[in-house]
Every structure is written in C-alpha cells, then in structure tokens.
C-alpha cells in the first residue's frame, strides 16, 4: 500500500546519516549526553549531597567545592547537578505530557474536520493566545511549587502548539488516496489514525517536542525568578540562578554556573532540534512553525 511507502520514503538509516551531517547537532548531542550522564551519575560518587550543610559558608570555588558554596554552606556543585536533574525532569515531563495531549488533540481535529476541528482548534487558539509566562505565574502561584505541578502547568499551556502542528500534517495526509483506500477496505477510524496518520506525524512532533524541552527549561527559570517556580528546599537550575541574581557582583560563582548550564542545555537541545528537522525534511530548510 502507498501508506507504507510514504513511511518508507525516509528509512532510518538515511535519516541518521543526514542527522550526522549536521555537525552542530552531533556536537550538541555529545555535550548533552555528557551533561545528563554526569548529572545523574556524579552525585552518586561526589563527596557532598545537595542537601548537605557544610561548615564552609559563601566560599569561592576551590578543589573541595569546585563551584563554591552558598551562605548555608551548600556545595554549589552538588546543587547544580541536582538542579540539572530537576530541570531535565521538568522539561521531559512537559514534553511528554504536551506531546501526548497535543498529538491526540491535533489528530482528532485534523482527521474529523468540520465542527470538531473548529471547536478543538479554537480551544488551541485560546491557549496559544494566553501569554504563557503570565498565566503560568497565576497557576503556579496557586500550587505549592512542587516540581511536577510546575511541569503540569507548563504542559497545560504548551500542548496546543503541538496540536496545531499535528493538525496541519494530518490535514495534508487525510486527503491522500491511501486513506480513501483504507477506508474503502473497511478500516476503522482508529485504525487508520494509528497506522497511517500517526507515523507521518512522528517527525514534526519530535522536532516540536525537542524545542519544547528548551522552552520548558527557560520558562521554569523565568517562573522561579518571579517567585512562582520550584521552591526550596527543592532545587532546580532556574531556582539556583534566580536565587543568586543578587549575587552577580558579590558571589559570581553562584550566578554564572547554573546560568551557564541552562544555556548549554537549551542551546544543545535547540541544535539537536535543528539537526532533526533538517534530517527529516532536507528540502524545507525552514525554521519553526
């Protein structure tokens, strides 16, 4: 059937080769892998836990404390590692939840069209029209600052982006002959969506979700700065960098290290997203939307 051909048009091996040709993306993947592995593995062997209160208060970076300490004597290195873990957990949860909801929502809208489409997409428009940061602040202020609640709030405001992308793809696929053929052969809607529509959607969704990963980290940082994000004693990169925004000139180690990791992670994720997009769609060398 032509549907399978449509998928076969981009065999994984070629996709991988194209991705590998995108050097910044490959470099980013390496860097990101190192950061992630380090964030989860190093704390197992590092001499301080993020919660340890050492007698060294506010000391600059040294061999004992590579990233220095804060006024309670928390080891900033251990805290940054923990912050990376938490920030990654938040962004991955956001990506998963909004990826899932957005895909289902967009597929339904695109596949059924008409009134269903109209209703579903107007809801999307509404969510997209709400200024993300502002509404997230309102919502997050109502929660108690648990990391997963912050993540859910961010998901609630970003799934619509994915829904819109998915709907676009589904609309273009829906009218193809192989769908007609499948329907003529008696396939159920659900089956058609699962076997024909979803595979075509995977690519664009992956790209959008990748970008969401970095948006989520940045949004969490902004929320923390305004005081509506993750709350101590929990630790996230956003919380670390916002708690130390007063320390730029006095205890710079507290401000620059977590900030640097936010940039590195977000940058790497964006490059990977770019690489994926080019690999999936080499002709359309187009950015976003």
């Amino acid at each position, binding site marked *: 059937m032509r549907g399978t051909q449509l998928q076969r048009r981009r065999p994984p091996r070629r996709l991988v080769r194209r991705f590998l040709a995108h050097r910044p993306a490959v470099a980013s993947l390496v860097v990101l892998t190192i950061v992630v592995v380090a964030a989860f593995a190093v704390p197992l062997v590092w001499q301080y836990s993020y919660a340890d209160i050492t007698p060294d208060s*506010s000391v600059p970076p040294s061999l004992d404390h590579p990233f220095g300490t804060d006024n309670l004597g928390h080891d900033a290195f251990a805290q940054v590692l923990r912050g990376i873990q938490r920030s990654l957990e938040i962004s991955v949860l956001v990506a998963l939840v909004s990826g899932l909801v957005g895909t289902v929502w967009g597929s339904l809208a695109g596949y059924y069209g008409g009134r269903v489409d109209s209703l579903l997409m107007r809801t999307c428009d509404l969510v997209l029209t709400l200024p993300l940061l502002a509404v997230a602040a309102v919502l997050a202020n109502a929660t108690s600052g648990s990391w997963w609640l912050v993540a859910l709030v961010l998901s609630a405001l970003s799934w619509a982006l994915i829904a819109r992308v998915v709907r676009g793809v589904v609309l273009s696929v829906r009218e193809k002959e192989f769908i007609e053929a499948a329907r003529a052969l008696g396939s159920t809607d659900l089956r058609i969506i699962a076997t024909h529509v979803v595979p075509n959607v995977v690519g664009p969704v992956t790209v959008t979700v990748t970008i969401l990963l970095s948006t989520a980290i940045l949004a969490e940082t902004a929320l923390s700065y305004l005081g509506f994000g993750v709350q101590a004693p929990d630790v996230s990169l956003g919380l670390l960098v916002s708690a130390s925004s007063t320390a730029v000139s006095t205890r710079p180690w507290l401000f620059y290290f977590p900030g640097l990791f936010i940039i590195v992670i977000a940058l790497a994720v964006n490059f990977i997203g770019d690489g994926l997009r080019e690999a999936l769609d080499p002709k359309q060398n187009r950015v976003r939307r």
Partner: protein
Amino acid sequence: MVNSAAAVKSGGTATYTITLPITNWNVLNAGGATYSVIDISNLLEPSAYLVQPDGSVVMNDQLLKSATEVKSDPQTIKYEINPNAKWSDGTPIDASDFIYNWQVQDPRQCPACAMALAAGYDRIKTVTGSNGGKTVTVVFDTPFSEWQSLFSTLLPAHVAATYGPVGTPAGRAKSFNEGFVKNPPKWSGGPFRVDQFTSDGSVVTVRNDNWYGPRSNLDSIVFRLITDPAEQPTALRNGEVDVIFPTPGVDLLKQVQAIDGVAYQMSPAPQVRDLYLNMNADALKDKALRQAIFTAIDLPGLVKKTIGQFDPTAKPLKDHLFLPGTPGYADDVTALGYGAGDAAAAKDILKSAGYSGIGTKLVAPGGKAVPELRMPVSNANSLAKDEAQLIKAALAPLGITVAVKPSPNPLGNLQDGTWEILDGTLGESPFVASMNQAYYSSCPTGVKFCNFNVSNYGNSEVDKRLSGALSTPDPAKAMQLLKEANGLIAADYVVLPLYQQRYFLAYKTSLANIRNAYSFPTYNSEQWGFRKE
C-alpha cells in the same frame, strides 16, 4: 537630640528608596501601616512622643509645651500644645485633632474604623479641650501605664471633616477608612509636604514653609519606589537614588560595601524572629517533646549561618518580651536549654519522658507515632527558607521529620491550622506590655487562632501579669509583673526566640545627619542635608 548635627548646607534634593507600593495613605489604618507609608508620614504627621534611635521615649517639644499626668484616679493626662503649632494650611493644631485621633482609634467610638492598633485608646473616657483648644485633658476609665504611646502620627481633624461628618461614628469611619486612605495628603504638620504622587508610584515631597519647627535643610525629598530590594544597591551605585533602606542580605551588604562614596549602618531593629510550636497539634501538647525540640536546635549555629552572614555581631535572643539593650532584658532561657544544639541532652529528655524510636522514627509514650511536623515557609523569604533547612537538619537526629512546605502565604497555613512549626517576625516597641499582650495572652475558650498569639499559647498566670502591667501606675511594679510573665512563658517551651532583626541603611556620604532609627530613618528628615565642602 541624641546625636549632634553635622555642618550641612541649605538646599538640595535627596532621593530615598521605598520598597512597598503605597496602597493606603493612612498610617493609622490597618492597611496603611507599611514601611513606605511610615517613612513618609514621619515627614507629615506630628506625634506627642517620639521614639529616639536608642529606643528611649521623649516628648515632642516642637508640638507640645508639656504633657503631665495630673491625677491618678481617674488617670488624667494634660497636654499643653505649642501655641504656634499649625498645619500647613494655617489651621492650628488643637484639641479637635486629639479628639479625632482618639475617636477613630477607639472601637467604642468608631466600630467600623479600621484602626491598626487600638491599645490604650479603648481605655480613654473623655478628651476635652480648653484654653482655645491649646490645652487637652485626657481622662481614662481604665488606667493605662503606657500612655506615652498615644497620640502618635496625628491626622488633621479639619481635613477629616471634609471627608465626612466627624461628629458621627459613620462619618468618622468614612474619613478614616476612605478619605485619608485614598487621597494623597495635601496637608502637613511636619517639615515637608507631599507635592506629587507620580504615576510610577514615587512620591515627591517639598519643604513645608508653614512648619513651626526648625526649617529643613533640604528643599525636597523624593521617595522612589523600587519594589525589588535586590535592585536597590545598583540604583544607589548608579546615582539614581541617595538612600536605601532594604531588608538586609549577604549580597546586598557586599554590593553596598563595594560602592565608593557610600556609607551604611546595620543596627538592631525593634523586631524579633521567633520559632513557634503549634499548641493545637496533639503531638506538641507534650512539654517534653517541645523541650527536646528547643534543646536540639543549635541556635548560635543558626544565627551564624543566617543573620550572622551579614551581621557578625548578631547574637541569639534570650528573652521573650524585652529587646536586648532595654532595661528589662535578661537571659531567661539558657538555663532551660533553649537553643543549646545538644542532641544528646534532647534524646535524654525524650527517653526519660518515655519516648521510643529515638533517632529513627519517634513514638510517643502512649504508642502513637509522632507525625511529621509541617513547617510552612514563605516563598519570598530566603532567610526563612535557610532557617527551615537548618531546623529540619537539627531535628532529624531525634527521629523527628520536619516537612518544609514552601507556601505563597504561610499566614494562610496559620489560619487553617495546617502547620506544626513556624518561624516568623513580630514587631516590638518600647511599649512592651501593649505589644506583648496580643502575642502571649490566652485566646478565648474554644478559639484555635486569635490574632497574634501564633502558637495558641494560653497560661492564665501569664494573662494576669500582662494585663496587670498595663494597668498599674507604678513602673517598677509593671516591670516586676512583666519579668514574672517572661519567666512563666519561658518555662512553657512554646516559643523559641531566635534573634533580633536588623535594619540596614545605606546612603551617599555627601548626605549628613541620616541614621538608622527605631521609628525609621526619616524621623529627623528636617536635619538631613548635603555636607558643606
């Protein structure tokens, strides 16, 4: 004056930083008594008595010629107002102002008035004027030993009359809850008057040429609103403001220290930080557990890691009622093991009280496990967050789990009763009995949360002594009663005093005669001035 004035020239504009947006202009109103409004009202509203930087209380000799207790039964105070004392529009300051200020702060005279503090006014029987209004006689129906606290930051009665008829409770409420609240003051009884309230929330004040006191040195003081204390040192460094008065912190101090041409003062504030245990919680009703908790907490260590980070002179607070440096201050708590940081002693206390599971999962003598203790912490207060972590760490070795709950509003938890441990700040003043009666008197029976008795602490012996101290005309007797109350409170292990808060003032060295003070730096605004070269 306490400090001698430095040589300054006349003229110039100083910019002072306020942190809270002004949402209510009436400093006597419950919603108006914020730092920003107090700062500004010092320039506008005269007081009968002034609290000096050292906490002593002296009569305001610009406003009053004399204030004397002329009779003890019934207690009667006679105030003689300076003949030339007048508001900026020329209206004399007289008995009508005293009457208005009493009536709006006495719930019996104005039930609907949203007064910040009724203490004392609710014991006044009559206020009468004579001698053309320049003599005021105040008669009490219940004696009030701290009468010097009354008639502070006076509002003008003749302006009130333009907002509502001051002869009726409803009219008084209208002027007090609306008129003075919503309208930026155009009047003044102090060295400056408000010229404009700008759209960015700042306030421009200029010299009040009609003031009866010594002419101010500065032409104008601008109050610039910078809501984030962290941004204030930058503004000072960049020359956009001349004076900042933020809540202190480590980085703030270091930033200020690095600025050329800026001096600062860090001094104890009339505010205390306490740790409260919730007496409504079943587990905490056992004194042994409370004693063990207070014994396990290392208070010197906590002070060193929090407030000590920016003020190395900070010491643990040892007294429940009195501030360090005041005559009544004494160490009531060290002998009782408060803040000893002695985990072994704390374990012994628990052991002899019949607790089990010490060091793992604490179980009360009756076999009931001690539940996790919830500690709500304000999202906005980094010092509180740090303290919570230290307390959590100190109690872990006993087998007590502290669940630190970040909360946008710990007060909500306080009212809902969803807490077991809380640290908070309470304001104190030289008028010890007035303030502490609200903090340590029993709540009415059956009430679980009443005003500022945070812990729902109740001890009838303490109640007796606090109200006795407020009513006795004899200062020595009052002191004796307060000290007894202090001892009783300490022995009950309900509130652990942590430390005295700090005021932090930083200013350009080109400015002189500016200093930290009990009643805020603007208390002597007329003396501020730029140094002569």
